[in-house]
């Protein structure tokens, strides 16, 4: 490895000549040491043009990125909508981030160019074009939660580096990187650093099959970049090219004619297909990207390192103390935070930690301690006892501090996407603290204050757009029918990177949040076929204060007419009934919901009789719908349908082979309007009793359905308890165990008070007292099993005895 890291012969393969017209500077994303030597090199090389790896369609954003009033982290957010199916047959939407931190060499290159007033620009293919040239599941098309343009998996996932990590005993690539580049190269010359980078990147490239580089789009991107470099070289005398180190050997060969350049043509797409915006970003988000091999972890720590290095550059000082200072500073912050959490970190702990990181740097041949020594010393000296999830707080604090909390801010002159502008203006109007990194809470009195109602709708709208912005902590939950009559809402909210990117995503749909919500709803409805889902959308629109009733009425009508799904229609009845009954409370006219409610209801009733043979898994849902229909006709709306519904239930009860639970449920509902059905119910239960074993088993299901709709049948008189007793007694042991869960479920419909009174009746059958029945010690299944075993043996022996 020594040979690999300190060989100057690399310059025979990729020359490094400060006088050449094109010079390549290899980098790793977000790396302070790369920025440090980059700026030193720019001073020496004095380029008149700086080219940076990055999709060229972001060139117009460079002035915003490098504006004095822009605060990093900032990210470029690219989207490409594959409606023309150029990437794949699926015609999907794609998006990715390109984050910039203060320590990012790409950023420093562009900033320096602005300060020097020289030309600069991005040279890579536009985002959509990269996608088009990338094979499925490779490169930028890898399946990832967050997609980043910066790829350093070439470095971090390389077999060659993995082997080095294992050999040198470092824990991961990042630790290796810090040891051999970040800290070590601070003390050498820029040329040494470049030699080291060239060498490693050359070796990695040698170890990467050409085929892989074609599949992930690397080769074609390099051809395009080389094309751009040569174009700029025509009009400039010294071009500095700043790219990921992996590309350096490839670009060198192309630019110097060692490999031929094939011209790459690009499509011209409108904004509806592809665009890029600048957005504020956070260290937290940048750190999360780390899991996707997109630069260094714990960016906050390295941001502080970079600040120290930049100061040294400005003052022409040696950077010897930078790491020591940042490490010490971070350690003290961690101690402070731990003490605030009552972990009692003493001066002695801190001085022991300092000894530890210095000692570790020494034993590890590091010129300065760094992030990993910091983690080591906190673990050894701040955690008293075993390290586990409950004791590792100091480590977690350190990780938070080293990740960094700051969020970026774009300068005022940055173009604002109208949708983002709307979001910010409304937030201002509603006095929402959207630039705070801490989650905020707000209480809304939605009926008393019109503004509060507006805010509530604002939150619902943002959630509808999947911004993850707000969470309703308290208040009516109309979708799930919980706390429906609450008149106050409590919300928490926090603007995150996800909020911004979602808004950018939807920006193609319209200029205001309201408008976009309306369009997205109507699109949703356009493709929807289930009335239940469509009705749910109605509720959502109601919550969002989006008036869709008129435009959507025809479409909704069609959906209901064509919907043959009983359960979906039941869901629709539920939602429309909810909307209808809320009309007074919210003071809105909802004649449409009444209309649709009636329509869905009627369809539901027509389909009802055929449901009696529903599969057992669906019976509970079916009973729920029957019960809901019954409740609706018992109220004021649709009371005219009461008799029709009962007649339908009666017709159901006459059908052959009913599903037992549903049968019980339906009989229970009829019993509610016609007590004479009690006899019918008792007969039905007797029927289950005297039938085959399977029939008896069904008796338990029947009870479950019955209790779901008519609990009181057990509570009046004693006959019912007697019948149940017979049913249970008639069951053989193993079958009893089998139906036990079903029985338990059936009795769960009763309140504790009711259970008491049932127990009393049951006890009376056996001339015993309720208290004895309820307080018997539990007999465990095992014991039962042993008893049964014993019985078998004894019976078996007596057989033999005969």
């Amino acid at each position: 490895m020594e040979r690999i890291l300190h060989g100057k012969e690399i310059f025979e393969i990729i020359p490094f000549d400060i006088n050449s017209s094109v010079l390549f500077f290899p980098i790793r994303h977000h790396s302070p040491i790369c920025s440090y030597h980059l700026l030193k090199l720019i001073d020496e090389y004095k380029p008149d043009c700086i080219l940076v790896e990055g999709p060229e369609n972001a060139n117009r954003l460079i002035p915003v990125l490098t504006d004095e009033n822009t605060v990093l982290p900032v990210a470029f957010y690219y989207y490409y909508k594959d409606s023309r199916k150029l990437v794949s047959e699926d015609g999907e939407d794609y998006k990715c981030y390109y984050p910039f931190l203060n320590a990012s060499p790409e950023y420093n290159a562009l900033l320096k160019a602005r300060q020097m007033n020289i030309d600069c620009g991005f040279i890579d293919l536009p985002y959509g074009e990269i996608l088009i040239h990338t094979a499925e599941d490779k490169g930028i098309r890898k399946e990832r939660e967050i997609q980043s343009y910066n790829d350093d998996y070439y470095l971090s996932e390389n077999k060659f580096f993995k082997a080095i990590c294992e050999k040198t005993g470092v824990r991961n690539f990042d630790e290796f990187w810090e040891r051999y580049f970040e800290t070590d190269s601070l003390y050498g010359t820029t040329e040494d650093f470049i030699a080291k980078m060239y060498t490693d990147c050359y070796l990695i490239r040698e170890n990467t099959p050409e085929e892989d580089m074609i599949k992930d789009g690397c080769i074609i991107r390099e051809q395009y970049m080389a094309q751009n470099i040569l174009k700029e070289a025509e009009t400039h005398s010294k071009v500095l090219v700043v790219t990921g180190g992996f590309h350096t050997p490839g670009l060198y060969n192309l630019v110097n004619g060692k490999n031929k350049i094939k011209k790459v043509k690009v499509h011209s797409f409108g904004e509806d297909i592809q665009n890029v915006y600048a957005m504020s970003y956070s260290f937290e988000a940048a750190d999360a990207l780390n899991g996707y091999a997109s630069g260094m972890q714990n960016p906050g720590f390295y941001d502080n390192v970079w600040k120290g290095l930049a100061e040294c550059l400005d003052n022409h000082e040696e950077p010897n103390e930078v790491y020591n200072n940042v490490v010490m500073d971070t350690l003290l912050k961690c101690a402070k935070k731990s003490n605030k959490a009552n972990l009692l970190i003493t001066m002695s702990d801190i001085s022991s930690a300092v000894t530890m990181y210095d000692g570790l740097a020494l034993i590890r041949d590091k010129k300065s301690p760094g992030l990993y020594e910091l983690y080591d010393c906190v673990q050894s000296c701040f955690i008293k006892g075993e390290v586990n999830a409950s004791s590792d707080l100091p480590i977690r604090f350190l990780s938070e501090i080293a990740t960094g909390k700051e969020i970026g801010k774009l300068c005022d002159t940055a173009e604002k996407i109208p949708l983002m502008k709307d979001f910010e203006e409304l937030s201002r109007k509603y006095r929402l603290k959207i630039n705070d990194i801490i989650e905020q809470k707000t209480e809304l009195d939605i009926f008393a204050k019109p503004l509060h109602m507006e805010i509530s709708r604002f939150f619902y709208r943002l959630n509808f757009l999947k911004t993850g912005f707000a969470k309703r902590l308290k208040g009516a939950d109309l979708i799930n029918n919980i706390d429906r009559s609450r008149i106050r809402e409590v919300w928490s909210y926090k603007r995150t990177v996800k909020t911004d990117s979602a808004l950018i995503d939807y920006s193609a749909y319209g200029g205001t949040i309201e408008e976009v919500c309306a369009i997205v709803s109507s699109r949703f409805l356009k493709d929807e076929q289930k009335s239940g889902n469509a009705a749910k959308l109605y509720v959502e629109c109601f919550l969002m204060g989006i008036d869709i009733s008129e435009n959507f009425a025809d479409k909704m009508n069609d959906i209901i007419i064509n919907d043959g799904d009983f359960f979906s229609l039941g869901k629709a009845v539920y939602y429309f009934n909810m909307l209808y009954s809320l009309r007074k409370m919210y003071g809105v006219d909802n004649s449409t919901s009444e209309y649709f409610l009636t329509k869905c209801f009627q369809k539901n009733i027509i389909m009802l009789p055929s449901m009696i043979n529903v599969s057992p898994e669906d019976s509970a849902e079916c009973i729920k719908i029957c019960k809901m229909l019954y409740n609706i006709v018992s109220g004021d709306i649709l009371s005219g349908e009461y008799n029709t519904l009962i007649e339908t239930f009666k017709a159901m009860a006459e059908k052959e082979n009913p599903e037992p639970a549903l049968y019980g449920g339906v009989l229970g509902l009829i019993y509610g309007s016609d007590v004479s059905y009690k006899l019918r119910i008792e007969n039905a239960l007797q029927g289950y009793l005297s039938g085959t074993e399977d029939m008896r088993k069904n008796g338990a299901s029947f009870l479950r359905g019955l209790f779901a709709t008519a609990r009181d049948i057990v509570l009046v008189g004693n006959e019912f308890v007697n019948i149940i007793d017979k049913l249970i007694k008639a069951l053989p042991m193993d079958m009893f165990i089998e139906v036990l869960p079903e029985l338990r479920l059936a009795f769960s419909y009763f309140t504790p008070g009711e259970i008491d009174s049932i127990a009393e009746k049951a006890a009376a059958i056996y001339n015993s007292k309720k208290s004895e029945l309820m307080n018997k010690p539990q007999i465990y299944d095992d014991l039962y099993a042993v008893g049964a075993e014993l019985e078998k043996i004894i019976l078996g022996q007596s057989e033999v005895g005969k």
Partner: protein
Amino acid sequence: MSQKYIKPPVEIRYAKELEALKANDTARKPENWVLSPKAVRTFILGSKTPITYNGEKITVNKKFFGNDALVERCIITLAGSRGLMLVGEPGTAKTMLSELLSAAISGTSTNTVQGTAGTTEDMIKYSWNYALLLAKGPVKEALVPSPLYVGMSKGIITRFEEITRTPAEIQDSLISVMSDKVLNVPELEEDGLIFAKPGFNIIGTANIRDKGVNEMSSALKRRFNFETVNPVKDVRLEKQIIINEVEQTVLANKIEMPVDTDVAELLAITYHELREGISESGIKIDKPSAVMSTAEAVSVFYQTMSNAWYYEDDKMSLKDLTENLNNAVCKDTKDDLERLKGYFNTVIKFKAEKIGGIWKEFYTARKYLK
């Protein structure tokens, strides 16, 4: 687990390596250390290239696997003013690591206090030779030094094994020693203050699975840096440990047959899966409650191997292996036997069908589980 085989102390086992390292050690040493911190590191974690000593090339092998950073932290801790406390499950090489550290730093690994419920203060500090005491009165000669006393007066490391098994108030007698680096023997009057020489430090080990442990007082905890030693996570490393350890023991016990690396791998995988509760192919395993440590795996392997050497014709039998595994796993509760059977009937069965070979033999041997 009882050690059924003999092993010489670390400093003798690796005498040559230690000498070679010492001869080539040019780095700065803390006072009274035999080796520099870097050389201690090399002794425990191995060196890539052999070192030359007396014209001989000596390879320093890696001895502790799976966490280099932990070893480095241990070394730095011992060079400072705090003690080192190694905590973890049984069989994670806490004792081994503390021996290696002591041998490399102080030249001896045997200056040890064994913590038990019966450990008393005089076993930690000092006691008297009563005959001499009666004859001469309280003089230094009559004093019987404890390992701690020896450590302080010679400037070497004192190992304190299973410290949490000793009663808390006994543990606490260490506090003043560690904070002031002074041991007071009031009976000796003006001679009674023993100052610790540089180089003195304490390595404690504690088992977090121990029932009836005596939690250390926070005052004592503050005198230590803690290191949690976890079981090795990587099956390849575990296999390597089994092979290394068994090779050493086999050598010491004059068993002249080569270590069967396939069986070592099989055993490493078995232990790994039973410990993690999930198989390589993702089958959930009901974990035994017994500790599935690497140390146990080594012992199971060695027993099987010595059996093959003494009673069979040098071929390790999977029947023996299975029986030894059975004995090692199913000593606490009956349930563990069921769990082990369950493991054979799912995971091993699967491997027997998929991979065949010794896994098939292993699966057939399930009938010896009882």
